[in-house]
């Protein structure tokens, strides 16, 4: 049963609330510097050349009223607010800005052809289902065996993506061909985590021996000005990872002592 809401109260069932009035094309992005989904959205805005206000949500603090109002369903970042209308979910946001902001000075991210678009969407879904899941297992696995299994899965996923890159790039630098496209940005959201993982583990996630095209793509993508403009500080990410690991280890030790 849907509970009765008095008129004037916040309708928590409507995820896209009018957060504030805006004029012209006002873009605000609610984000968190360490999130790969926020990075993905920032990359899209950067490659489209879209200026916007960026509002950082605290990692461990309370979520802002603006975030809670504009994404009441998930209460998560990223949230894009365009002229007062909120759009949530990184892939939904990227497709939205690609459709709305067009023109010669706003390069298209998704291909023009419906079939190529379907292929890009397929692989973007794959990245979120498989690559993200394997990374989360690597980071949050309860045992070292579980984490190792996550790492093994991430290498398997990388090999599959290597095949996709070979097929889609057709010898050109990016998944999108000559220029960065939707899939480059979908994967690009993870480059900071990949870089961090490489530093912490001392080995490469996109190993040039196993996945040469992906390894080259990674270097090339990270060197682009539009990427560098929004890339988080990897040293800070390394520190954050170490801090989170220490916290998880302490929690696990406390549990095993009390049991």
């Amino acid at each position, binding site marked *: *049963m*849907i509970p009765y809401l008095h008129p004037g109260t916040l309708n928590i*069932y*409507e*995820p*896209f609330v009018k957060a504030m009035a805006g004029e012209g094309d006002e873009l605000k992005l609610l984000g968190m510097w360490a999130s790969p989904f926020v990075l993905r959205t920032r990359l899209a805005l950067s490659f489209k050349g879209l200026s916007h206000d960026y509002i950082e949500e605290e990692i461990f603090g309370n979520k802002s009223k603006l975030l809670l109002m504009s994404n009441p*369903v998930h209460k998560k970042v990223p949230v894009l607010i*365009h002229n007062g*209308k909120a*759009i*949530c*979910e990184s*892939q*939904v*946001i990227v*497709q*939205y800005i690609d*459709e*709305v902001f067009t023109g010669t000075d706003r390069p298209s991210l998704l291909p023009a052809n*419906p*079939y190529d*678009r*379907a*292929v890009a*969407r*397929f692989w973007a*879904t*794959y990245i979120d289902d498989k690559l993200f899941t394997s990374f989360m297992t690597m980071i949050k696995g309860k045992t070292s065996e579980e984490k190792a299994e996550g790492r093994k899965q991430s290498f398997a996923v990388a090999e*599959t993506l290597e095949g996709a890159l070979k097929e889609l790039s057709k010898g050109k630098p990016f998944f999108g061909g000559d220029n960065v496209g939707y899939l480059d940005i979908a994967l690009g959201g993870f480059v900071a985590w990949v870089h961090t993982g490489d530093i912490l583990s001392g080995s490469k996630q996109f190993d040039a021996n196993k996945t040469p095209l992906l390894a080259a793509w990674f270097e090339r993508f990270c060197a682009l000005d539009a990427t560098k403009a929004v890339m988080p500080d990897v040293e800070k990410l390394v520190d954050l990872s170490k801090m989170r690991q220490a916290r998880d280890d302490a929690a696990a030790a406390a549990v095993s002592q009390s049991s």
Partner: protein
Amino acid sequence: MSEQQPVKLIGAFGSPFAHRAEVALKLKGVPYELILEDLENKSDLLLTHNPVHNMVPVLLHGDETVCESLVIVEYVDETFDGPPLLPKNSYDRAKARFWAHFIEHRCLKPFWLSMWTEGEVQTEFMEETKQNLTLLEAQLNGKKFFGGDTIGYLDLAACMLAQWHDALEKVTGVSLVTDDDFPGLRRWAKEYTSNEAVKQCLPKRDLLVTYFGLHKQKYKSFANALVSQ
């Protein structure tokens, strides 16, 4: 790809995902050949055309292959003439995609796990499902379908909550989407299953009950293995 190229859909009895793709083709009036897979014994056709997941549905349009049910629905909408499946307005499209993602990850997954798990774990999944279905039901807001008067993308995304849900509750005895708790969704389910295009692709409820009954043990094992990870 020319609209005139032949269309084949690789599906399987009982798959709500294959159903989504098939209804999209029906709604657009696209002629197609349906190839039904035996999922216990997958064909070379399926394995070669979906080597990543080995799953249905797979759309073959001339030489091109499209996988993932909701990706297929968008492809069909963009490629063929006929009534639009997604809204025209970019913001409304973004909302539809958001809710489809919500349905897939926050409704259907815990719903499925509610059916096949037991005890405290099952109770938690049921609670999660009910909370999320409440949010979803609010999106109907008295409308006939999620997009308004005509059936569309989000209705196809939610199809499991229509015919499949009834069959699953009959097989498992788990009562989740009741008339009392979710009158809006139950009304929507009747509208959905009465739609002419949907009726042509809808598996009969009693056949679904038999099908789920036959695979009950397998689903229970998979669900419990997933939960214990």
